[in-house]
């Protein structure tokens, strides 16, 4: 740039700007502007912009602080995992289910530094761990993953000593069932998170315990134990006898139930095969369902009790009403046979003791289809029976109920109910006529009378008692009487032919024996069922109920009657005098 030398004292005069530069300048910065003032304003603008940007960053930081999952939050979720359940005790206070604290192994995969090493050490310490699964869990990006629930304190110590970062333990409540398989079906079981998934355990959850857990109150607090009606001693004796019988007769399944006739309480319930609730894997086997509540069966002759009671209660028949059961009963193309037809007309009592299908069918026909249906509805055989147990089954009832249905249902075929349902019905026939819903919880007689529904007259009930006792004195229940003398028992056998490939089979039967004791003042009903018992030399090739279910029932009664507080009495009169005569007096 060349120009004349200026005297520093002279005012500064600038040389004229080249036109090109002026153009660029005015294009870039505008014309006639005070650049200094403009610059100042723009610095101010830049400051505001920076303030905004830093403000956004600050807001984001604060959002993280407010929404972040803090330590306190994480701790509370951990506590919720280890939920506690109340103890479950039997009617005498013996513990059926309780909580035991045990450590569980978890990992926080993000915290594990050397994942390969961790997998190797852990599978070394716990050989039963699935290596591939553990690897997958540890390699995940999760913050928390269970590795093994409920390990032993020794294992915990060993793993702790390995010093793997990102591996930890939580003390959890583990549900323990000291009585093992004895109460399996009744008590149900819990899952790994200590939530009830079956039986009474599930009932507990659906009745407020789960809510309590959710609110966070149920952890580690002493909770009132839940008292059940079951008697562990009776349960054990029943199960023991059923196990023996199942083995002896090579039966597919065996089940039994003891219920209090006056209160509806279930004192014992066993369904074999059962499972150990401490080992939940077994419980999923479909063969191990609870046959007394979840299964439905044609109950066979046991149903005759209901049929005859219906006839007696209607007043259209009495104990001495005669029925001709010499010949098979024909209905359309079907013929109803009796196994051992009696070559003379028989009384209603004899229909019961001989267990005549033809007789029972004629009795039912005498009442008519609608009355039969209404009666069964009244005694709760047509609807699903609901108890505390979540498991229940809908009875299988013919959709179109004609005379043929009435004929077969009269002797317990053509309709399937849950055995517990039949027990409830029979209870009502002998306890004076009150239908009392069964319960697994404790119940007093007063409570039972309040909720009980009268379904038959007391006199009818007396007559049914007489007939049932007669069965033990002269009928099919003699073998039980022989084994349990002095308890004045009575009962009804049932041999239901099972449907195999659409036909009733002679070889595969479901046998049942319903016993009541003592017959003069009924207190307990005992049901024994054997599924497909095989013939033995000592049964002379017979597979009917009287040869297997009845003796089993006798054995059961001989063992449990003392536990139930029943005294043997050996000087009692036969039923016609003790029951029938006193009944007539009360009339």
């Amino acid at each position, binding site marked *: 740039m060349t120009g004349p030398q200026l005297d520093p004292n002279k005012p500064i005069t600038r040389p004229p700007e080249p036109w090109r530069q002026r153009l660029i300048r005015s294009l870039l910065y505008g014309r006639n502007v005070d*650049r200094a003032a403009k*610059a100042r304003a723009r610095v101010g603008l*830049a*400051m505001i912009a920076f303030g905004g940007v830093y403000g956004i960053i600050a807001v984001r930081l604060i959002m993280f602080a407010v929404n972040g999952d803090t330590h306190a939050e994480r701790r509370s979720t951990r506590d919720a995992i280890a939920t506690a359940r109340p103890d479950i005790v039997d009617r005498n206070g013996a513990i059926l289910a309780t909580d035991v604290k045990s450590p569980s192994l978890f990992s926080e995969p993000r915290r594990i530094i050397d994942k390969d090493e961790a997998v190797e050490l852990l599978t070394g310490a716990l050989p039963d761990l699935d290596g591939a699964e553990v690897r997958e869990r540890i390699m995940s990006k999760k913050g928390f993953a269970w590795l093994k629930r409920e390990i032993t304190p020794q294992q915990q110590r060993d793993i702790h000593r390995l010093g793997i970062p990102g591996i930890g333990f939580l003390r959890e409540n583990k549900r323990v069932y000291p009585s093992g398989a004895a109460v399996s079906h009744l008590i149900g079981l819990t899952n790994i998170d200590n939530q009830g998934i079956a039986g009474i355990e599930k009932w507990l959850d659906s009745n407020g315990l789960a809510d309590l857990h959710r609110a966070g109150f149920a952890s580690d607090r002493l909770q009132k134990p839940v008292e059940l009606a079951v008697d562990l001693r009776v349960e054990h004796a029943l199960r023991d006898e059923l196990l023996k019988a199942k083995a002896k007769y090579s039966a597919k399944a065996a089940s039994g139930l003891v219920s209090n006739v006056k209160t509806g309480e279930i004192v014992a319930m066993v369904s074999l095969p059962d499972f150990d609730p401490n080992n939940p894997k077994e419980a999923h086997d479909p063969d191990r369902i609870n046959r007394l509540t979840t299964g439905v069966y044609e109950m066979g002759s046991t149903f005759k009790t209901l049929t005859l009671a219906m006839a007696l209660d209607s007043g259209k028949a009495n104990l001495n009403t005669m029925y001709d059961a010499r010949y098979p009963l024909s209905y359309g193309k079907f013929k109803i046979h009796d196994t051992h037809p009696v070559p003379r007309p028989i009384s209603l009592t004899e229909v019961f003791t001989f267990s005549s299908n033809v007789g029972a069918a004629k009795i039912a026909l005498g009442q008519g289809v609608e009355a039969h249906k209404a009666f069964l509805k009244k005694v709760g055989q047509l609807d699903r029976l609901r108890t505390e147990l979540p498991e229940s089954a809908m009875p299988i009832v013919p959709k179109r109920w004609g005379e043929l249905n009435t004929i077969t249902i009269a002797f317990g075929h053509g309709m399937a109910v849950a055995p517990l349902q039949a027990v409830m019905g029979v209870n009502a026939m002998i306890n004076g006529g009150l239908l009392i819903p069964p319960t697994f919880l404790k119940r007093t007689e007063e409570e039972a009378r309040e909720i009980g529904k009268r379904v038959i007259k007391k006199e009818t009930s007396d007559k049914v008692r007489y007939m049932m006792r007669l069965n033990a004195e002269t009928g099919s229940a003699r073998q039980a009487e022989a084994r349990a003398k002095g308890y004045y028992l009575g009962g009804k056998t049932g041999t239901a032919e099972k449907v195999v490939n659409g036909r009733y089979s002679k070889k595969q039967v479901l046998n049942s024996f319903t016993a009541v004791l003592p017959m003069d003042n009924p207190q307990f009903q005992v049901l024994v069922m054997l599924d497909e018992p095989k013939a033995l030399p000592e049964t002379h090739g017979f597979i009917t109920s009287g040869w297997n279910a009845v003796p089993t029932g006798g054995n059961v009664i001989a063992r449990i009657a003392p536990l139930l507080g029943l005294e043997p009495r050996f000087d009692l009169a036969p039923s016609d005098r003790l029951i029938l005569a006193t009944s007539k007096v009360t009339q």
Partner: protein
Amino acid sequence: MISREQRTPLSEWWWTVDRLLLAAIIALMLAGVILSLAASPPVATRIGLDPFHFFNRHILFLVPSIIVLIGVSFMTPRQIRRSALVVFAISIVLILATLLIGPEVKGAKRWITILGINIQASESAKPAFVVIAAWLFSESARKPEMPATSMAIVLLMMLVSLLVMQPDFGQTMLILMAWGSLFFIAGMRMVWVFGLGATAAGGLLMAYFLVPHVAGRIKRFMDPASGDTFQVDTAMEAFSNGGWFGLGPGEGIAKRSLPDSHTDFVFAVGAEEFGILLCLAVLCLFAFIVIRAMSRAYATEDLFSRFAASGLAILFGVQAAINMAVNLHLIPAKGMTLPFISYGGSSMISLAYSVGMLLALTRMRPRTEVEAIDAHVARTYA
């Protein structure tokens, strides 16, 4: 010594320098020391060094940094201009040397080793360039007959093309933003503001389509499922874990898995161990430094000082803002260090140089001196 009675260079410096700004910078350096202690040992162990390797070097570089910082803050604007020119020239030479003989690390040539020290020449080029650009813009305002703006554009093109050749898009972006801001402050017409904005957007779009890894990063930001977002995820988690008060010193876990925990992601590591309150404090320090420096620039009469101080403050502030925003997943991942907090030897000295100039330019000066300079400049060029 620092008495007002005698005019010594030291007392003069003490009474004119912005002591609050100085205090904030020192506080930031201290925060850097604490966070380095938290963030660097896991990285050092991971690559097989002594756990305190990075920490020791951090302290080691702090000493010359403070000397540079104080030393530079003694300079007059004139000296700053001249030194900037020298530093810029040296940096350009070094960048060229890097391009020619520097080793290639992760696909880029950014480092050159001189006397055992790894030097990233672009770090020192940045502040020097900003000062020179500020000077050119101030000249263009004062002496319209000088083709200052054109020279500023030429310088920018030169530096940017060198940086793109490395390639170093982070630094390029910073340079462009600082230069653009300076141009804006220098009084560019609004038409051009929008024009430049559009150009920047176009450039970004071009980068998106032409440079695969830029595209990848933006895609991952928009849709985290589309690729590996491990670093950002871990950083997010670190903030969440920390909460207001942090897990406590040494309790953090993000630092164990974050590869750049002592450099790019030191902010997240700090949040996890010391809490978001500390992060807010650091954020406030940055905001204070930037806004304080700019308000001093706002107040000064000297155009060069105003431009240079704002330019340096913007450079510093934008770098910090980008780093924190990346840490908080507000913008796509971009490797950028947090000034004075992240580890990095040569970058720390460059920062000290940069902030030293900021201190020098925001010193209070008698108006006469400013006018004298003005007059002198006018004389020189007239």
